[in-house]
């Protein structure tokens, strides 16, 4: 069922709150991959506040949906969402990146409740997600696996090994996103190593493809609901996003792939988030 206007505005409000928390964590941690966390924030919000079947009070609930943050450097974004969703106390995020903290830039599933896979090395997550989805199939379970790839990550050959396998094995209990923010550390994806025609590449690998605005909740919801119903082949949602989305001075700026924020900048960032859609 499509998201109602009320649901959409609630999700938008939640996303503003989460983006603001991500800015706080960037301050506390001394530096974070804030750009890619902000670009994925609306996808994460839609998943964790609408679509994932999860029990934050029981993080290892066997029948939960799985989520693999294959772009593991989005850890600040995911940790903020998990804290807000109640997997652990928000105060713990003050320790992000600190000595012996459970939270590093790339989240460790053995230390952080709610993290289904320890990621960070790019090109690993989709294979693990395919394995999880096959595990559900082998055990006759109905839970779904969701996987979020970075677009630059799609340079990795192992992503395409996993893509081939998901098609060949007809893995249709897996829903994959590409956070298509068009920027990687060294510059625009099309300058560093061209990905386009990206949708055609996925189609050629046998996947269903939907291209959406990754900040438009109506489109996000419609794509996820269609993917949940898709049978016989894996489906990828290419979410066109803006790196640094919601913070005016970060948007589309490659230098905000990873950056530090002091209290003045944080105030400016939060003001920008509060004034946004």
């Amino acid at each position, binding site marked *: 069922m499509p998201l109602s206007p009320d649901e959409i505005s609630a999700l938008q409000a939640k996303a503003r709150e989460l983006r603001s928390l991500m800015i706080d964590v960037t301050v506390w941690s001394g530096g974070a991959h804030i750009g890619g966390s902000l670009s994925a924030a609306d996808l994460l919000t839609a998943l964790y506040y609408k679509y994932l079947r999860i029990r934050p009070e029981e993080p290892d609930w*066997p029948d939960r949906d*799985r989520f*693999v943050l294959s772009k593991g450097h989005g850890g600040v974004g995911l940790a903020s969402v998990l804290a807000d969703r109640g997997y652990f106390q928000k105060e713990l995020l003050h320790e992000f990146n600190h000595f012996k903290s459970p939270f590093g830039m790339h989240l*460790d*599933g*053995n230390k952080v409740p709610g993290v*289904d*896979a*320890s990621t*960070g*090395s790019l*090109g*690993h997550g*989709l*294979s*693990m*997600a*395919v*394995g*999880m*989805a*096959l*595990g*559900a199939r*082998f*055990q006759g379970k109905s839970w779904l*696996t969701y996987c979020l790839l970075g677009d630059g990550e799609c340079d990795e*050959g*192992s992503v395409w*090994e*996993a893509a*081939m*396998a998901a098609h*060949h*094995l007809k893995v249709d209990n897996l829903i994959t996103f590409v956070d298509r923010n068009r920027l990687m550390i060294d510059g625009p994806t099309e300058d560093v190593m061209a990905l386009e025609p990206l949708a055609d590449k996925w189609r050629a690998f046998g996947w269903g493809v939907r291209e959406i605005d990754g900040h438009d909740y109506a489109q996000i919801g419609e794509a996820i609901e269609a993917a949940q119903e898709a049978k016989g082949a894996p489906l990828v949602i290419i979410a066109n996003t803006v790196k640094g989305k919601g913070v005016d001075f970060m948007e589309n700026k490659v230098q905000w792939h990873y950056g530090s924020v002091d209290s003045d900048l944080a105030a400016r960032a939060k003001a920008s988030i509060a004034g946004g859609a």
Partner: protein
Amino acid sequence: MAEVTGTTWTVYDANVMTQADIYGRVLCELGKKDPRIVAITADMAHSTKIGVFGEAFPERFINVGIAEQNAFGIAAGLAKAGMVPFVSTMSVFASMRALEQVRTDICYQNLGVKIIATHGGISFGQAGTTHHCTEDLAIMRALANMTAIVPADGYETANAVRASLDVPGPVYIRLGRGFEPLHYASEDYDFQIGKAVQIADGSDVTVICCGVAVYHAAEAARILKERNGISVRVLNLHTIKPIDEAAIMAAVVDTRRILTVEEHNVLGGLGTAVADVIAQSGKGCVFAKTGLPDCYSEVGYPEDLYSHYGIDTDGIADRVLGLMGKEFEADEDWEDEV
């Protein structure tokens, strides 16, 4: 020899089966009892014999094609979902082509993935150096959470594969390729992961070895006793990690001479692991390592290569004889040499 009966199994005739054949058969037996077991390979169903499991349980078998990184990533995901994945490919690809998946996806997350890697060492001699693997033990030792095992023969392969199921974390078992000689007469002996098996007792020197070297070391010990009156202890150190420190130190104390033998670069593998234990003990002994002398392996039939690198009966016997002329020197004797 007829079919062999183990304590609980009657599954194979080790005289006419390779280690991999036996692995495939044992995995099937395990699969009948344990529905969590799933098998994964990368176009090596036939070569590694994991395909035997695939024929028996096609619904629990995945061949990802020639894509080792994906094989190990999928295995990690399956383990996360509650399955017990066995992954088989050649050891060179398991330990190096997909190393980061093994390290980050499997070992870092401490997942119970069992890696049964075939064609270890120089056992696929004719294939050439690209298909040899003389670095895997060094690599696996360096991975936290990993258990690394090199069975001596087919019987020990059966024991190791079975025992790996009881290890909650990742396990790497390195097999050979062909008809490596049998050391054991059955699988009925005290096999425990992490515990060396004393093959022969001796008081003059100890040969610590694994894999195909165990058969040859036992032969060498017998010959040295008969011909030279040398008393050689032989330790089958099938588990490289966690290492049996007690057995190593008992050998140091009792025999004062240690020779390690392995189908591996002498840097980083069994010999280095044994040396670590001895060096940290504060005790000393005459010590030598046999293996590949930090080089890429030559091409040839395995038997010829084992002979070339001294990993055969004659090579081990010669090396032991060389050690017999050396004595461990206590520190008061050092002055005249420095």
